[in-house]
């Protein structure tokens, strides 16, 4: 079936570019699937649930990490239109990528679950869209759920956007009810793109993806002029030029075209193999007679969170290195450099946009490359000024300067939490314990409240979200944004086994929290480290001052009582097995520490588990 949308160079007034802003699980992918079906782009036979989320990991976690986009035909009152649906990543870690997707659109569907209301991340992305002057089309999804409260949440959305409650569309993406109204509304309300068709070509990259067979696939939105194949293009941030091998549209698979005109969205293939050469936010122009000025808004990705990744089995180090090299092809934000830890051996210090980025990267390394990894506690970037006036950035506690420190600055974040109002107390308690400062609080409706905090980024990158979830029985959502550095009283706490510092356990914490971190770690390790043939003191120290101490008592008996003629072969084999097992132990000084102890000591499970229990107890008492 051929349609109006099959050929490019469509007149801009017939084009509508839009995205969907939604929280995880609020039905974005289902709506996208429905739209593909409704526009006839995807027939029933080829239909696959949540077609747009291609990565397995994304399907599993129900989130979109890498966006996809698609060109759709749609008629309103007999007039043909082309819709470009630009899918956006949905998580705070990818705010910059979201902002580039938004910059490729003129409108956004704000999709909210009619049983849950708007969530903090959605709100953050909505504000981002409003900053980009996007036309917002408010839509409540899942209206057929028994728990749906469309009237209540329509009022909430109207309050937030400043529209009438009657403007809020009500759909069920699952059944398809109301979905064509949404598309009509896109055509009627979203402005057509504008641009200078005669100016030198300028197209913005809003995503780039590495494909094993085709190299990097770059997604662009043409702002001015025309992009046509078989010419040399230039990436304006780097000045690098590439032969443009192919230009095309996606509907829903890649289809080469004769080119793309103003307002059109499609893909480019140049044969480059690394997404770093095709960066999100960059401007594509022609090498000859190209544009002079790039489009505004390009930014280099800056890692916010660092963590050491170490293979459980030291011999997997080369596998980890190759795996990171491969991930890098598809992830312009990931950074890494080799790191050696006395406790964990050879690994890499990796920089991530945020916690989710870290988790996803780790999960992909483990799954796609069959690696078993230990990751150290995530770290933000501290800026340390020494008394001699020199400055250092510290991304790893091991690099904490030895000399006299005159000032330490840490990144701060503006954090927004939305939750049912009954949880205000526990949320405030948590934020205060994390050195948060309340900036303001707003009731979005009678029962839902938005809290705004200024909080050190370090306090939220570790286990803040887990704690927030467990204190609010999963109802709270949060979002944060970095807002610059602030001086703070920070110290490095070391954990010593038999007087020897274990680098993997060192942490930079506020001086008021040094004792609690130190004693918690010492306590945990005391339970985790098996008794040795000698006493093992575990100490926590700040500089040369010991702030906490525990002891693993010496083992008193290990000898198997009997060893006669019939026991010898079995016992020798047991020894050989033990020797193999010993290889899996990490040795700190003379102390043998099982891998599991490192994993357990570095994990946060225990803390949140306890809180869950507390909550259960409280619930029980009610």
């Amino acid at each position: 079936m051929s349609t109006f949308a099959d050929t490019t160079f469509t007149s801009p007034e017939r084009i509508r570019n839009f995205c969907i802003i939604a929280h995880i699980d609020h039905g974005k992918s289902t709506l996208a699937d429905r739209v593909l079906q409704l526009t006839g782009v995807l027939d029933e036979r080829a239909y696959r649930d949540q077609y747009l989320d291609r990565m397995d990991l994304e399907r599993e976690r129900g989130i979109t990490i890498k966006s996809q986009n698609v060109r759709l035909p749609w008629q309103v009152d007999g007039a043909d239109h082309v819709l470009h649906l630009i899918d956006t990543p949905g998580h705070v870690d990818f705010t910059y990528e979201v902002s580039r997707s938004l910059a490729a659109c003129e409108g956004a569907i704000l999709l909210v679950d009619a049983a849950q209301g708007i969530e903090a991340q959605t709100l953050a992305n909505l504000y981002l869209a409003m900053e980009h002057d996007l036309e917002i089309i408010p839509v409540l999804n899942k209206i057929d759920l028994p728990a749906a409260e469309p009237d209540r949440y329509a009022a909430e959305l109207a309050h937030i956007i400043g529209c009438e409650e009657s403007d809020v569309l009500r759909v069920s993406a699952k059944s398809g009810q109301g979905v064509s109204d949404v598309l009509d509304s896109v055509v009627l309300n979203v402005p057509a793109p504008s641009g200078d068709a005669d100016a030198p070509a300028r197209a913005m990259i809003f995503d780039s993806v590495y494909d094993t067979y085709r190299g990097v696939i770059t997604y662009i939105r043409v702002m001015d002029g025309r992009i046509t194949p078989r010419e040399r293009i230039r990436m304006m941030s780097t000045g690098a030029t590439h032969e443009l091998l192919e230009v095309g549209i996606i509907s829903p698979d890649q289809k080469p075209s004769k080119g793309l005109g103003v307002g059109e969205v499609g893909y480019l293939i140049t044969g480059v193999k690394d997404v770093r050469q095709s960066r999100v936010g960059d401007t594509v122009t022609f090498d000859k007679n190209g544009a002079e000025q790039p489009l505004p808004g390009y930014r280099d990705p800056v890692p916010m969170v660092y963590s050491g990744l170490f293979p459980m089995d030291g011999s997997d180090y080369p596998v980890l290195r190759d795996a990171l090299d491969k991930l890098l092809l598809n992830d312009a934000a990931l950074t890494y450099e080799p790191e050696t830890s006395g406790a964990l051996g050879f690994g890499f210090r990796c920089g991530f946009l945020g916690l989710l980025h870290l988790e996803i990267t780790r999960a992909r390394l483990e799954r796609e490359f069959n690696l078993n990894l230990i990751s150290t506690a995530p770290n933000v970037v501290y800026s340390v000024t020494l008394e001699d006036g020199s400055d250092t950035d510290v991304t790893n506690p091991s690099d904490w300067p030895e000399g006299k420190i005159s000032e330490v600055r840490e990144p701060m974040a503006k954090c927004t939490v939305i939750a049912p109002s009954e949880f205000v107390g526990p949320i405030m308690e948590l934020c205060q314990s994390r050195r948060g400062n309340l900036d303001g609080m707003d009731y979005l409706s009678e029962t839902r409240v938005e809290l705004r905090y200024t909080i050190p980024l370090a306090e939220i990158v570790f286990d803040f979200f887990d704690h927030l979830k467990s204190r609010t029985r999963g109802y709270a959502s949060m979002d944060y944004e970095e807002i610059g550095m602030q001086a703070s009283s920070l110290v490095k706490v070391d954990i010593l086994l038999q007087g020897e510092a274990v680098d993997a356990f060192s942490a930079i914490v506020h001086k008021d929290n040094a004792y609690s971190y130190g004693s918690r770690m010492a306590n945990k390790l005391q339970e985790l480290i098996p008794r040795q043939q000698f006493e093992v003191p575990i100490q926590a120290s700040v500089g040369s001052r010991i702030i906490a101490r525990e002891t693993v008592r010496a083992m008193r008996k290990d000898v198997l009582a009997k060893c006669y003629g019939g026991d010898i072969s079995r016992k020798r084999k047991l020894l050989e097995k033990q020797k193999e097992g010993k290889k899996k132990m990490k040795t700190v000084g003379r102390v043998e520490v099982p891998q599991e102890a490192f994993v357990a000591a570095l994990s946060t499970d225990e803390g949140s588990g306890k809180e869950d229990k507390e909550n259960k107890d409280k619930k029980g008492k009610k």
Partner: protein
Amino acid sequence: MSTQPTGDPAPEDGSLPASALTTLGRRPFGVYVHVPFCATRCGYCDFNTYTADELGSSAGFDGWLDGLRAELELGARVLAAGDNPVPAAETVFVGGGTPSLLGADRLGEVLGAIRDTFGLTAGVEVTTESNPESTSPEFFEGLRRAGYTRVSLGMQSAAEHVLRVLERRHTPGRAVEAAQEARAAGFEHVSLDLIYGTPGESTDDLRASLDAVLRAGVDHVSAYSLIVEDGTAMARKVRRGELPMPDEDVLAERYELIDEVLSGAGLGWYEVSNWASGVDARCGHNIGYWQGGDWWGAGPGAHSHVGGVRWWNVKHPARYSTMLGEGKSPAAAREVLDTADQRVERIMLELRLADGLPVEVLDDAGLLAAKQAVADGLLRAEALETGRCVLTDRGRLLADGVVTRLLG
């Protein structure tokens, strides 16, 4: 043991590699005989034993004895294949199982069969294990007449409730009585076995057992902490929480108590689980195990070692008899130790002895570890200076860990 090691196939004719026979006669040589019979099976035991009900009539005492004779003959033939003469046995140890179930006459026949095949040296040490409830003055006298020189009695405990948990059938006073009967029958060397750390055993219970041991006037004591082996009835009870196991710290204290009481009474340790009143009172047969001696182990499931080759027989008495009846070796599998294996074994075994391990066996890393173990109070400083690794009192309880360290 209930689980046998994995090994290489053993040849049907039982023959040994020529290399194993070149050193024959240069090491102590002994014969072990396994008696796979018990009146009942104790809940903690995972040894290769069978009750009459389990075996039925086909594999009774006589069938077993026929098999044993055949195996001893095979053994003498196999050892004669080398250039060295077949050595006479310096030690014989009849274990089980419950050898006393056979009665003194059959035990006499067993020793006779060994005399007829390998031969016995002039000063041969001949031990049999016995359960107190199946012995009598006549039994011991019969053993003496047959040529036995040593008796080892499974006393386990003097506390009735402990014996009950262990499912032992003798009454608390019977072991001491039996030891005294053995001495009266002329046995100079009598040993009592103790088990400590049984669920429910108190320190006072153990003290009472030790008092009883001393009253019995024996010259040798073995004491083992109860090991709950997988697959035993006791392991199931422990798993279900019906029997509370004492922790290792309590076991360490019990061991220290045993060592204190025994050495106070003139019984010094010569191996981590064995005490004797003098060098003559030590069990020469067991020392052979720990010092890399050669021995032929005859009987179902028995293990043997000759010149760096270890092998073990099929476990079931019926199969054992059948194989020998067909003229085949009853070996189930074997392993030929390389130099590295032999070194590991030397460290593992000789370190258990009060005489210790010569430092020449250690490599550089092991020697360094030995020095560290001295610093940790696990090896004796003065012994290391004279070239031997000898465990300290504390080190004895941590011998397995010290072995691992000395392996380098």
